């Protein structure tokens, strides 16, 4: 799910940028400037959905804005609108689940998404409560607690929105990778079941990637 990473970067950097993407045989661009995406409501929503499912994505900073429309949709609004009623193909779902798997323990920030008609605001609020209660959010748990297929779609949309908008962030400020190595080794030695299971998710992700490309 590279497109999520790029969208997030674009929004967080707060600098003018252009995102070029290819979906199927179509190549298109989405411009970002001053906290918003360029274009009409419908246009931006559709482009964002295409970007979620894009085959390739690239971000160009320092783009040429000369022939861009004057209309701009504020990022939270645009994301909320793109995700409204959005459901996934099995391929996109599998990709989103693979992406989720890679997320570290997280903090969740509170943001007035209801102001932007975010349809899944209730689920987002509950996710935030879960974070407050535990002091950490494991996105993997959050997604797997879904009660049914519909609920899973909602939770995945909340993951997408909060990730792209920077409302979730690593609990350990992103530095946990190397700093926890010794601890991890000790843990691996004592809990024999930890290792093979951790490998299983990575195996499944690799198979998902391969099958998508068939």
């Amino acid at each position, binding site marked *: 799910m590279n497109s999520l*990473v790029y969208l997030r970067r674009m929004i967080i950097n707060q600098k003018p940028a252009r995102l070029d993407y290819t979906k199927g045989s179509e190549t298109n661009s989405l411009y970002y400037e001053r906290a918003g995406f360029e274009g009409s409501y419908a246009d931006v929503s559709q482009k964002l959905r295409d970007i979620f499912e894009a085959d390739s994505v690239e971000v160009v900073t320092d783009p040429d804005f000369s022939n861009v429309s004057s209309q701009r949709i504020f990022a939270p609004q645009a994301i909320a609108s793109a995700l409204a009623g959005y459901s996934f*193909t*099995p*391929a996109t*779902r*599998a990709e989103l*689940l*693979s992406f*989720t*798997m*890679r*997320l*570290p*323990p997280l903090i969740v920030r509170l943001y007035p998404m209801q102001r932007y008609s975010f349809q899944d605001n209730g689920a987002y609020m509950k996710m935030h409560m879960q974070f407050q209660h535990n002091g950490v959010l*494991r996105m*993997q*748990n959050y*997604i*797997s607690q*879904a009660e049914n*297929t519909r609920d*899973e779609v909602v939770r995945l949309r909340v993951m997408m929105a909060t990730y792209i908008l920077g409302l979730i*962030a*690593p609990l350990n400020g*992103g530095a*946990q*990778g190397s700093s*926890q*190595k010794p*601890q*991890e080794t000790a*843990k*691996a030695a004592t*809990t024999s*079941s*930890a*290792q093979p*299971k*951790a490998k*299983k*998710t990575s*195996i*499944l*992700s*690799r*198979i*998902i990637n*391969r*099958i*998508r490309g*068939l």
Partner: protein
Amino acid sequence: MTESKQIVKLVITGPVNAGKTTMVQNLSDSQVAATDVAATDSVSQLKAMTTVGLDFGILKIDDTLEMHLFGTPGQSRFNFMWKILSKGAIGAIFLVDSTCDESMLEMKKMFLYFSEHVDLPVVVGATKQDLPGAKTPDEIAAFLELGDTMVIPVDARDKESGKMLTLTLLGNALVEAQADEDYDDDYDTEDLF
């Protein structure tokens, strides 16, 4: 290379004529050199089984991982095979011919055995939805008393359709694997945040 390869299995099962052979073919690499195939303990066991109509295909995932696809004979009398097949399997796909009552009845028996004896992620693919008299996925789910198991329309002849069914299973498997994973907090998040 061959020595270090890891192998996982995908089992495609269901009654006769449901589309198993077709689907295994569609999802497998068309040409696999015999020397490139990693040896498994089960290969010799499965050789014996091919005499009873087992489909076998290989999908190379990457340099260190291979997926072996097994299409198993569609009769409940071959239920014993699960013992061998489920070892190292990532999941099971049941195919059922949506137009055939006999197929449904056999499927019900097979699935009952499966749900009592095998603990694997599973989805049901309802084939031949394009043919007259096909039962809907909902009707099939109700008839088979599948509970939470998903029933998804699939055309075994269509590669994309088979991919979608498989990706649904893999997605479910991933959710299950994540749910009981022990966190080691070794996340490679550099490119994510």
